[in-house]
């Protein structure tokens, strides 16, 4: 006779309908939280801003916005429009050295806070 023994050690079934807030944060979120708390995110943002200004990326985006606004007419353009238009181009045109530098900084940050 195979009696089914209830496993008292078995963890409770996760409630699928539970709020998202109670789910375990993803790795990305953990890293983000750590970076914000330590102030590193703000520093990285400043660094990125500086590099993108230096290499002319910001001026390039500005002239893209100006061209778009001229085409559409000044009163027919919103900030949201501009953001949508230039985001793909902006993401694609970040120079590789800038990306590399930021990645390096993030890597060293992670290495220093590894528990």
């Amino acid at each position: 006779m195979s009696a089914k023994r209830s496993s008292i050690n078995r963890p409770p079934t996760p409630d699928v309908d539970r709020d998202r807030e109670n789910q375990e944060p993803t790795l990305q979120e953990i890293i983000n939280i750590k970076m914000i708390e330590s102030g590193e995110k703000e520093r990285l943002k400043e660094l990125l801003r500086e590099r993108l200004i230096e290499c002319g990326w910001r001026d390039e985006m500005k002239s893209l916005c100006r061209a778009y606004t001229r085409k559409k007419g000044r009163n027919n353009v919103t900030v949201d429009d501009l953001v949508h238009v230039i985001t793909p181009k902006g993401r694609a045109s970040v120079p590789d050295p800038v990306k590399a530098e930021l990645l390096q900084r993030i890597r060293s940050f992670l290495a220093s806070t590894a528990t």
Partner: protein
Amino acid sequence: MMSRNSMYTNPKPCKHLADYKLRHGLSGYNLLQEQIRTTPSGKSSVKNHQTEIPRCCFCNGYQKRLYLCLICSSISCSSHTLLHSQCENGHDIAVDIERSELYCVLCCDQVYDPDFDKIVMLKHLMDLPRSGNGVDVSAGRRSSKRRRLCSALELDLKKTKQLVSMRDLRAKSCYPLGLRGLNNLGSTCFMNSVLQALLHAPPFRNYFLTGQRNHEVCRKRSSDRLCLLCDIYVFFSAVFSGDRTPYSPAQLLYSWWQHSANLASYEQQDAHEFFISVLDGIHENGVKARNTGECHCVAHRVFSGQLRSDVTCMSCGYTSTTYDPFMDISLNLDTGNCPSTDLANKSLKPSDNTYVSTLLGCLDLFTKPEKLGSDQKFFCENCQERQDSVKQMSIKRLPLVLCLHIKRFEHFPVRRMSRKIDRYMQFPFCLDMNPYLSSSVVRNRFGNRMFAFEGDELDTSTEFEIFAVVTHSGTLDSGHYVTYLHLKDQWYKCDDAWITAVEEEVVRASQCYMLFYAQKMLYYKANEDLVCQPVSPRADPFLPIAGCC
């Protein structure tokens, strides 16, 4: 306390912002003020919880732009702001958390309110280290402003009856007054070119032509000594006499040699150096310099302005501000090259060789914040130690006549070598200096603000018109200066003794070295004074005036 810059027209608020203001006034803004945090670099953000990460109340996202509702303080991301406004009636105005900028949910666009900006900037100022925060919150010094305006008008008002009476019957009435070739006395094109520009600087010209320089009673002349001002007066009279035969400014050259003994030779000289030296000579020869306040010699009244230099500590944001007078501004050519970051792999511009330098680019470069090198660490009063800092120049006060000098001669003292930069630079005929004023430059430090708080120059215009271009051709050792004059809508090429009317394309294509701009009103008034009849249609536009009467 703070005056608004009337030059900057505030966009009209949208209906929703207007409604919000009617209903809530400034209460929402004031409550927000406490939550604003500022960084030394000038950024203001809203941080209502120190440690918590702001998240959208609908999707829990934290990576998009987040907006804080001004009425209920709930946070939505850019995808869900509309949803929030639909859930709660009237919650239409929000603040971009990261930038402290107003956003209208229903218009889906950024909106502006000077009252809001005032509150943000007040908070920013309060956060900055106490003394010398780099922002002048005192009311504009109206009395000195008025004095300067009066001075400008005075140079201008005393009018043209004298000019008309000086017109000689020999004058070719189809050309404007004051056009006369200058003989080259031995590599003196550097002098001739600058003199042509000075002859037509409106307030400068008026000073000498309207008898304000009374050389009869000049003490120096009566005791047989040289007086540079008197010689300039004689020079002006000769050029505006109506006689069109080329004039030899020998007396003036001799007089100037006495003043600048180190430059007295027959070698080629630098036109810009001559310009500065002549102004200096006028200053010293003229009215006794006062110990306090501004100098009232004609050179200063016409050409002097004031520069502002801000050095900001990158650690704490403390800014040290100094003001220095200037008689002209020397600009480096903007080449479009990035100082760091090798772009060889992913070049934004197709080829660096196609970048055209422009005057506005040079002015941008001049007023750009510049990181001081690690060997130039600035001693910060607030931190009490040397820190990395950023320096930024701007123009506090514009002169009546603005002389812009393009640095084309590079000197390498170590290698004992000099070279000339031949790069072409594009320049406009109408120039608006507003973006380079201290009020504009300082305002931009605080993000996207409509509100100006410097003691703005509400009275003086920032619009300038070009009237003279000194160009250089050739090499450093053997070159030639030529001046183009813009008189009554016609350009004239002044090449020593030869003066010809030319098309504006010729001027635009020339290699400019010194640019002379006059405040628009003065320029147009001056052109009215030059009595001139229209050139007959048969006239050859390239007919030289020199040597004919």
